[in-house]
């Protein structure tokens, strides 16, 4: 632990020396730096901060340093995260490659693939998106129909993927494709990387109820994909995908708090929009009860996050507990948004234009967006099925 304490002091010093003051303020959605061939920086400070972190390898702290990562172990990475949080340092780089594809390539890729893709992700040179779901497949991911035909020296890909988040801004996509149409559902699926610039790839945004159109549909029309782009074994893509899904679910269980939203939390919103009586209690008893139930639930969820971490550290990991986090994070996240809506009352009913400030509009949009959280990345129903089957061992029909 002494080493770790020393490491913490060094990290703190480095962050204080290197993170510009402007990069310690809460980040808005517009200020996020996303990876990509044509990276945009909202400010010079953002660029400087990104470059300093990239050069330390701390865009991807736990990846091997020889591939552009920080080479930290899990405890050290946690220290870095904690110190960044304490100072308010912004995340320097956003990318699905960092959160999802990178870990999969490190686990399943061959050396050439690692050399080819990992450093680019670490440096933020390529923006990745994900192609799993298909129209009509939904929760039944394994029923996917997008075909990749073996043409000898390449695959010929035809089909379409839906919910390809930010596909219209991405450079590459990682996909699940069917390589053996005769095999049973989960067999015969492979994991393929496709350059979005390849001829035959087109993307259309999908408008959501929240007015956003981050999600897209991506079409593949006779797209030629080199065989070097196959990650893992042919027809064994399902195991790569399962490993990846875990990362996605972890991400989704944390996202409730991380989605760009209003600058206030529920307690602050309650004090501002409802107010307190002479005893310091919220004036509206029903809203007060709704608020405290949520606050207590969030605290319990936060403590459970810590617990799973501590269990892992102490070698007592109950591998079942992480399975609940996607469900509780997104379901309580939805309740948080309903609560904010209720607290703001009339002021959370605006869509656009005058009469509603930025925080109020973010509350409304955030509420609508939250409805997707318990659907994307494995619906709540699927999560409950998984717990019943894997954790409780209940019989299947």
């Amino acid at each position: 632990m002494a080493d770790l304490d020393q490491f913490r002091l060094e990290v703190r010093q480095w962050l204080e020396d290197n993170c510009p003051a402007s990069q310690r303020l809460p980040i808005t959605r517009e200020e996020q730096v996303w990876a990509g061939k044509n990276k945009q920086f909202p400010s010079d400070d953002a660029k400087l901060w990104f470059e300093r972190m990239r050069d330390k390898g701390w865009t991807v702290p736990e990846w091997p340093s020889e591939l552009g990562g920080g080479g930290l172990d899990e405890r050290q990475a946690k220290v870095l995260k904690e110190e960044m949080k304490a100072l308010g340092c912004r995340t320097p780089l956003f990318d699905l490659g960092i959160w999802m594809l990178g870990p999969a390539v490190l686990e399943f890729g061959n050396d050439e693939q690692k050399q080819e893709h990992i450093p680019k992700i670490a440096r933020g040179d390529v923006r990745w998106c994900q192609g799993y779901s298909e129209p009509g497949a939904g929760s039944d991911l394994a029923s996917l129909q997008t075909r990749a035909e073996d043409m000898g020296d390449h695959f010929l890909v035809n089909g379409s993927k839906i919910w390809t988040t930010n596909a219209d801004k991405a450079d590459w996509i990682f996909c699940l494709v069917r390589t053996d149409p005769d095999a049973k559902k989960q067999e015969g699926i492979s994991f393929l990387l496709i350059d979005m610039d390849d001829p035959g790839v087109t993307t259309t945004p999908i408008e959501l109820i929240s007015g956003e159109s981050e999600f897209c549909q991506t079409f593949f029309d006779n797209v030629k994909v080199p065989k070097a782009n196959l990650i893992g074994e042919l027809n064994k893509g399902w195991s790569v995908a399962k490993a990846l899904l875990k990362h996605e679910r972890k991400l989704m269980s944390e996202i409730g708090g991380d989605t760009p939203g209003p600058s206030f939390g529920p307690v602050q919103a309650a004090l501002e929009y409802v107010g307190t009586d002479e005893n310091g209690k919220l004036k509206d008893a029903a809203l007060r009860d709704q608020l405290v139930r949520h606050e207590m639930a969030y605290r319990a969820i936060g403590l459970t996050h810590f617990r799973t971490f501590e269990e892992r550290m102490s070698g007592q990991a109950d591998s079942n507990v992480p399975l609940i986090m996607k469900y509780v994070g997104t379901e309580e996240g939805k309740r948080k948004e309903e609560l904010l809506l209720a607290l703001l009352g009339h002021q959370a009913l605006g869509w656009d234009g005058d009469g509603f400030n930025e925080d109020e509009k973010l509350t409304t949009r955030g509420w609508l967006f939250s409805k997707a959280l318990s659907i994307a990345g494995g619906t709540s129903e699927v999560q409950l099925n998984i717990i019943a089957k894997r954790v409780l061992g209940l019989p299947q029909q």
Partner: protein
Amino acid sequence: MALVLNEEQRLLKDTAKDFLSENMPVEALRTLRDSDDPTGYSQQQWQQMCELGWASIVLPEQYDGLDFGFMGLGAIIEESGRTLAASPLLSTVVLGASAILLGGNEEQKSSLLPKVASGELTLALALEEGHHHAPLDTAMAAEAHDGGFRLNGNKSFVVDGHSADKLVVVARTSGTAGSADGFSLFLVDGDAKGLTRQRRKMVDSRGAAALSFDNVDVSADALIGELGQAWPVLETVLDRGRVCLAAEMLGGALECFERTVEYLKERDQFGVKIGSFQALQHRASLMYIELELAKSVLFDAFSAIDDKRADLPQLASLAKARMNDVFELVTNEAVQMHGGIGVTDELEIGFFLKRSRVATQLLGHSGFHRDRYASLCGY
């Protein structure tokens, strides 16, 4: 107590259903939204509704009304909830006209109500001032001035307030926020001097406005009812509004529910229809139960209006609180059960979701009505 529709009311309901599904499907609301319509409803369709008698249905015959009762109007409003039809029915016929009918003098009634019946006159109730429905907290002041009254203050979340020909303004001529004494109602022209009206773009794409009164002067005959004694009238007006709004919400919830059940029967996952999953079946059954209970409550609430029963306040709070909760449940379940497409703008479920939360805040959220119901029952 009447807990079923009679023959005439059923006919009215069927006619409304036909008209609305043909002329004002949910798609019509989308069009209004995407064309950034300044009014928030189609004037032409409103005239058609008036021709069908919907604006005159609850008015007495002496004011060109049909005197058909709120049970019939409720049946129409329920159908309008199914297609999310945007119209000034609630603001003009339920809230505005009730204020005049229940509070106004003969002159006001005979000059204004026939125009409501014919569709010549639209009205809006200017009530809210804070973040939440709280009629007793009204602070807006009306002072005696020059033989009439001078109004100063702000109103928010005024449904159809930007387009209404006349406003029924809730103000205090005495008393302080929190007290039921000193409430007065005033008729103010939509283009009165000193009045600024700004339409707000709401999440449900309907019309609501913020109003600002800067020395707005009205004559003595703009006062509806007795000076400072308007609270009981206002309460009844609001209770009628709450019941009618709850009926609209019931229609929306039923439509949303039925579409979801249909989807459960169509959608394949894991080689079977998702409607065969028992967990979804039970959740669907629970929604059905809640909707059936709500129907009964609404029937009785409309009876309470038509029979001028003393327990209307309780029934109104029961109806509104229940429909707030049921509509929230059904819209949330509808989105979740539709999965990915449930959160797309293309599917119409999102329109119901958005409307439900606006309707919830309008005229009181569930906590407000549970608190009121408990107090009315003496605990």
